[in-house]
């Protein structure tokens, strides 16, 4: 008969209603799938009883396989595809990612030539998700109705959107994307605490991430993140292998070096529970003397790397305006934190015992499963998870200036809008340029999208009201809309940015904005002055056209023209003070003209009407 699971009170499913909600940790090195069953989270196993499924995709001419890399010339094997998701070709060139085949990139989108089929990182990632889905469906004998997928806290819009796209391609319904550190905190049930600051230290195989979470009344907020995308447990293995090679004076080829590296990985695992291990290279076909490596040897080897992670962690703390004593909990994530020395170094530095009783390989997937369970309505507990935007979002205004609509570190979901108007008389379209970044000038920020609002009814400059609204949903996807309020003419765009951005870029963008703050302000003032000058010139010109001959004598007319031409000239000077001075001068010269125009238009309106009509 069919097997039954324990449900929450009153939540027993009807027979044949086998719909499950799972959590997925789509990792750079390994991926996991988990669900809450019988009230507690379990990691699902594949047919070979593995919980950790390597994020490896093999393509042969006939089929696709996931998990174990195929060592054969007939297979193209992708590793660490997560490093490329949502990125463009330009980013790829700088990246450490190793491509197993030719890359074709006509339009800055990365496409791998896999047996004459062009595949994007999204499609390759979707194969991993497809496999995880299959693992779950086989072991649950049911259907996966929804999932929560975790992403690094620093993932930007385009990386989040790409992860969602990969899920859609694999036939998964994404309930929500969840930040990895938040998932880890959830796994430990930290949301039950009232207020606390949590540091999540995530040292994986190839990446290091550290995040500070602020928990207030059950709501998580990511205060700051940092890390190193090329530092991880694999570096420990390389150091250990090099140490052995050095000590034993080995002279070995590339293949043997790789075997030694894999052997070092095993030694590292042994050293988590033993004080010393004997190196026996005969097992991997290398003749050599014997060697004993102690835990202490190993600790000394990795100490430098660990100190580096502490410096990064400390910087992230400083970013959040916190100090070590403010941290209430430290959560360890990632297989490399199993090394006892890692725990010790963290405990000594932060003077606090880190949480590590949940297997650090599983902790993110478990948090995702708990979140999926909550969102599916299986559990009565309510939990709202909030994240923040890593960089400010805004639009380009006249003078190539950025006007921020959603500031950096706003909690999402968020909606914010601003009103804009037309610059020229009769302007019938407005181009909306969405940018991301902390700098004042558009060209220093990152362009996300451009679209145009058409068919604005002709009006004088400044009369139209155009409301631009920015909306970021719970997954961090941005939707921008513009509406002309009189005619309700509407246009909108979902931002699926084609340009990539990394945590390091974000860091650089932030640093840039601090370093260039003064320059930016000067630039902003200058550009604002230029825009103002152009606006004044346009207004004067149109006024002269209409009423210049009627209301001014030749001398007055000439005087205004001279002041106007002087302003035109000063625009080129790129000197803010001179421009403002010239604007003031022009305004002064035309004061009389403006008031005459006002009077004459009032006269023309009042002509033929009784005074009482205005009382």
């Amino acid at each position, binding site marked *: *008969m*069919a*097997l*039954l*699971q*324990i*449900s*929450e*009170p*009153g*939540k*027993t499913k*009807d*027979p*044949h209603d086998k719909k499950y909600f799972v959590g997925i940790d789509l990792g750079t090195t390994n991926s996991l799938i988990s669900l809450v069953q*019988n*009230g*507690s989270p379990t990691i699902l*196993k594949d*047919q070979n009883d593995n919980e950790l499924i390597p994020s490896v995709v093999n393509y042969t001419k006939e089929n696709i396989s996931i998990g174990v890399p195929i060592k054969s010339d007939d297979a193209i094997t992708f590793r660490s595809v997560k490093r490329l998701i949502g990125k463009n070709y330009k980013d790829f060139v700088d990246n450490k990612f190793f491509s197993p085949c030719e890359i074709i990139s006509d339009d800055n989108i990365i496409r791998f030539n896999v047996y004459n089929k062009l595949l994007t990182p999204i499609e390759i990632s979707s194969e991993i998700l497809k496999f995880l889905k299959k693992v779950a469906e*086989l*072991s*649950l*004998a049911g259907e996966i109705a929804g999932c929560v997928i975790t992403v690094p806290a620093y993932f930007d819009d385009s990386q989040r959107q790409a992860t969602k796209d990969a899920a859609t391609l694999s036939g998964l319904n994404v309930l929500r994307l969840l930040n990895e550190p938040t998932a880890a905190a959830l796994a430990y049930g930290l949301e039950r605490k009232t207020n606390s600051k949590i540091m999540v230290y995530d040292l994986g195989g190839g990446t290091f991430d550290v995040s500070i979470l602020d928990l207030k009344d059950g709501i998580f907020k990511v205060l700051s993140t940092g890390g190193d995308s090329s530092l991880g447990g694999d570096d420990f293995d390389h150091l250990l292998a090099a140490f052995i090679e050095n000590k034993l004076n080995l002279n070995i080829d590339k293949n043997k070096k790789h075997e030694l590296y894999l052997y070092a990985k095993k030694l590292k695992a042994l050293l988590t529970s033993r004080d010393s291990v004997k190196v026996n290279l005969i097992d991997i076909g290398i003749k050599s003397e014997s060697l004993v490596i102690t835990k202490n040897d190993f600790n000394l080897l990795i100490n430098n790397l660990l100190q580096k992670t502490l410096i990064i962690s400390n910087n992230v703390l400083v970013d959040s305006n916190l100090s070590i004593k403010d941290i209430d909990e430290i959560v360890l994530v990632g297989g490399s934190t199993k090394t006892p020395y890692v725990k010790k170094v963290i405990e000594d530095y932060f003077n606090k015992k880190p949480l590590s009783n949940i297997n650090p390989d599983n902790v993110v997937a478990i948090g995702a499963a708990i979140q999926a369970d909550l969102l599916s309505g299986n559990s009565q507990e309510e939990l709202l998870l909030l994240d923040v935007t890593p960089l400010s979002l805004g639009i380009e205004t006249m003078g190539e200036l950025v006007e921020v609509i959603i500031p950096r570190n706003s909690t999402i979901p968020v909606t914010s809008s601003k009103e804009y108007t037309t610059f020229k008389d009769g302007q019938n379209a407005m181009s909306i340029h969405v940018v991301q970044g902390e700098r004042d000038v558009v060209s220093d920020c990152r362009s996300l999208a451009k679209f145009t609002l058409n068919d604005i009814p002709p009006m004088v400059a400044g009369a139209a009201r155009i409301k631009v609204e920015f909306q970021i949903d719970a997954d961090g996807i941005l939707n921008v809309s513009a509406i002309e309020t009189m005619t309700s003419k509407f246009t909108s765009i979902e931002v699926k940015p084609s340009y990539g951005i990394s945590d390091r870029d974000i860091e650089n963008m932030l640093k840039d904005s601090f370093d260039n703050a003064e320059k930016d302000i000067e630039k902003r003032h200058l550009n604002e002055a230029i825009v103002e000058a152009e606006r004044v010139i346009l207004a004067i010109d149109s006024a002269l056209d209409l009423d210049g001959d009627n209301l001014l004598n030749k001398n007055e007319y000439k005087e205004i023209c001279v002041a106007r031409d002087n302003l035109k000239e000063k625009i080129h000077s790129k000197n803010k003070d001179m421009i403002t001075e010239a604007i003031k001068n022009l305004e002064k010269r035309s004061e009389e003209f403006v008031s005459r125009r006002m009077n004459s238009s009032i006269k023309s309106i009042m002509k033929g009407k009784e005074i009482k009509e205005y009382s």
Partner: protein
Amino acid sequence: MAITITDNAASRVKTFLNNRGKGIGLRLGVKTTGCSGMAYVIEFADKVDKDDTVFEEKGIKIVVDPKCLLYLDGAELDFGKEGLNEGFKFINPNEKARCGCGESFSV
């Protein structure tokens, strides 16, 4: 009248209750649904209602309402593995027929 539970099932229930962090025991029952008329209910019990019968079996409190008890009298709850799937099953002498998939039954 009695409902029993195997050692294997009892130890699993204990673990699940511990992991859940709350609950006094297990509520067993049946509901009228499915293709053969009835389906089993296994839920965590957070409270005991007035008319409920409570059995204490191998350290596990089993809570059953009087109507359900009629269908479950003499049944044993077991925990087992089928392929990759693990879960509970009832060995119930009152069962007369089952639907093809075994998820619902009739008495």
